[in-house]
């Protein structure tokens, strides 16, 4: 998403942005995602009526109820195509999609891919808890092998999706990874995602304390894990810089995503490619230029003359 720096007349505060108290379980990682989102919105001061939060179905997908903005709580797995409709037809709004790993990678996996290659201008936060939360503990496409769920009582056996790799290969133009236990990191990622013009995605590990407790301990320093962030190239010609990650290089981004447990955190990939929004608008502009100031009735009249 882009074009966000327009300041609202009155200052937008967290208080204004808060709607219902979240119905998530105490301790759920999703609370921190919400809090970080509020903080970034406060910082960017997007006019309140221009914020649109859209979600499918899942614990995480209840997000729109907790944000006091225009919102839509859709059906399972289809939030992205719906958001595509909003983004393409209402360039004046800022479109955000929130959802879970099941919603995004299972039933919604194909929409994600096509949204990415078309580079639809919106920001998508996947709150990944490696489990189906709302339906109470079935294996999700990101569940680790061996994870015991109601649908894998002896442990999951299917190789999980690698979200970063999926997104990079699909053509998403901003691909990042963050962690609900790291508020500052989340904020930085969300801010960059929002400021990115195009399809920006931040996979955010968000612990389901009920059905998958401790799942991300490996990446939480205070639980003995390692939170390994990506060291991005600074283009400062120093020898250290040679070792750093070039976020514009999709092959190294792909390589960097190899190990996903606990994996690395930060921006994997960022590309400057025209959005579908811009490309379609170009066509609209060209068409309208051609017709001059013909009204709908004129266009129809002209077309029907051809059918005589």
């Amino acid at each position, binding site marked *: 998403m882009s074009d966000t720096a327009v300041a609202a007349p009155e200052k937008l505060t967290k208080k*204004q942005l808060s*709607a219902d108290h979240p119905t998530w379980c105490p301790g759920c990682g999703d609370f921190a995602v919400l809090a970080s989102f509020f903080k970034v919105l406060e910082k960017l001061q997007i006019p*309140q*009526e*221009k*914020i*649109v939060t859209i979600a499918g179905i899942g614990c995480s997908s209840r997000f*729109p*109820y907790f944000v*006091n*903005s*225009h*919102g*839509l*709580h*859709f*059906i399972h797995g*289809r939030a992205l*195509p*719906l*958001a*595509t*409709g*909003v*983004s*393409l*037809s*209402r360039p*004046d*709004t800022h479109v955000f999609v929130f959802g879970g790993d099941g919603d995004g990678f299972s039933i919604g996996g*194909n*929409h994600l*891919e*096509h949204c990415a290659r078309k580079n639809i201008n919106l920001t998508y936060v996947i709150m990944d808890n490696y489990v189906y939360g709302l339906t109470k503990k079935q294996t999700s496409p990101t569940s680790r092998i061996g994870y015991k769920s109601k649908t894998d009582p002896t442990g999951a056996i299917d190789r999980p999706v690698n979200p970063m790799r999926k997104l990079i290969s699909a053509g998403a133009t901003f691909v990042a990874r963050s962690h609900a236990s790291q508020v500052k990191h989340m904020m930085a990622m969300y801010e960059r995602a929002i400021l990115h013009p195009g399809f920006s995605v931040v996979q955010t590990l968000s612990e389901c304390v009920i059905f998958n407790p401790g799942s991300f301990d490996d990446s939480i320093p205070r639980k003995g894990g390692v939170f390994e962030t990506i060291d991005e190239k600074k283009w400062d010609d120093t020898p250290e810089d040679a070792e750093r990650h070039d976020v514009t290089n999709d092959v190294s981004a792909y390589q960097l995503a190899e190990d996903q447990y606990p994996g690395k955190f930060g921006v994997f990939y960022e590309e400057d490619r025209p959005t579908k929004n811009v490309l*379609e608008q170009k*066509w*609209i502009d*060209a*068409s*309208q230029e*051609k*017709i001059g100031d*013909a*009204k*709908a*009735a004129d*266009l*129809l*009249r002209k*077309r*029907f003359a*051809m*059918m*005589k």
Partner: protein
Amino acid sequence: MTIAADEAPLKDSVDTSESSALPLEDLQDAVIRFAGNSQDGIQTVGGFLARLAGRSAREVMTYMTIPSTISGGPSIFQVHLGSGEVLSAGDDTDFLVAFYQHSYEDHLSSLKEGGICIYDTDFVEPDLTDKRYEYVGIPMTSTTIEAIGGSTKSRGKNLFVLGLITTIFQLDRKKLCEIIDRQFGKKDESVLRNAMLAFDAGYAYPIGDLFKNRYNLKAGLSEKTDRVTTDGNTALTYGLLAGGVRYGAGYPITPWSPIMEVLRSELPKYGGLFLQCEDELGAVSAALGYSFAGHLAVTGSSGPGLSLKMEALSYACMAELPLVVINVQRGGPSTGLPTSVEQSDLMQAIYGSHGDVPRVVLGPQDVEDCFHIALEACRIAKKYSTQVIILSDQALSSRIEVFEEPDWDVVVADDSSPDLTPRPEEFKPYPLDSLTQHAPPGTKMLGGKYPVVTGLEHDEWGHPSANPELHQKMTDRRREKIKQLQAELPMPEVFGEKSGEILLVGWGCTFGPLREAAGRLQDAGRKVSHAQIRHLHPLPADLGSLFEKFEHVLVAELNDQGLYGNGQLATLLRSAYCNPAIKSITKTDGLTFKIREIVAGVDHHTQISS
């Protein structure tokens, strides 16, 4: 190269004197069937003839079949030209133009007794001993090749035949040349030249020894000579544009694709756009995204694709988002008969989504009506924030008819941009007592509280709630607003008396055959009337009392009689009115009704019960 008709390269030397010497027979109407292969361009010729009718105060209806193999195959195009009202493409044909032996063999039986079979002597060997018909053999292929010059092989045969028809029927050569020019003038120069060469070869072909007569199709009642000639898909598409649709999303499928293709090309001119999605689930979702964003949007498909949209349409009902949905029906179940006509998606249109989902279903009755139904669908969707499904079908989609140009100043919808006026503090998107539109993104909420549109049951403010009474009240709300629409629906036009022995009832593309059948039965002295139902759900409020005035209410539909002997509309009507006079005439052979099938159905039901 653009050739005005009067500059057309028709050599003055073309000798039509010989054939013009034939006696003239006046015809009220004529049914001509061109039978060949899909590659022969017979659709083009049929289309030209239809367009000519539109320009010359005659009526027309066409019918075509599409081969089911990709590489093409046998195909027909039938044109029914008439000076009076032309309601169907004709049960039987007066003239058969047979390009190949298989065309001759498969279609000879479509000729009326005494009908004329015109065949290509280069490919067809007819059985001349069958004295029911007359035969005219013409070396169409070789004459065409000769006329154009060998290189293009048999391409152009279609225009040769068009020329032939023009001379046989005394058609307006000048207007036809204009039409040909418009079609081919934009292409390579040689294309138009070859077309005209072939046309002229046919026009000049010496038919004097072959035919007994030439024919004069009398001019029609309509004074207008500038009417529109087009097919149902096109009419529907422009109806949507006139109705204010500016955004659409879809996925290709036959016979829906042409609608999305034209919208994709046209919408940018109107400042909108059409999105080709990865599948139908994405398409209906994107379309709902436009609706949520404040636009009037369309999505559509044919049977299999409609099935995929059912979940999202259930959402649209709960969220009360306006949407126009097109289903160009084809033969089912499953992939079924993708290029045949059938009306078997009516129940799905009404009941296909999970839950109690009141929505609107409309069925256009002819090509012109495709335009007007689309307009009406737009109006209803907006006013009632509801989903309107338009059930067109394969026959309507490709059939060509002539009709008067709409009055654009009347029909074109006003400004269709989202309503972003700030909403007052007391604004409720789902008030229990009135119709409203939701507040799209970008709208300032003066009370400071922003709404979430949801598929969960909710209160008047759109807030999720599982409160039992509320669910009952909101279910009532969703039903009652459709009943409110019902109250304003007009009754269907009744052809014939408003009471009597038999009321023939139909919907969709069967309008023509049903009306013709009713006329024929009336002529035979029976008290038969006909009503075509365009508002299928809800039904117009007084329909039940109309039905009570007839001994038999016979519902003719192109779908199956089901487990209880009733077609799909008949099932609905019987359940709504519990009137045992309502009986079914159904069939599923992928073809439209013939007049005689309807008459037989009427005889069957009226004999059984009398």
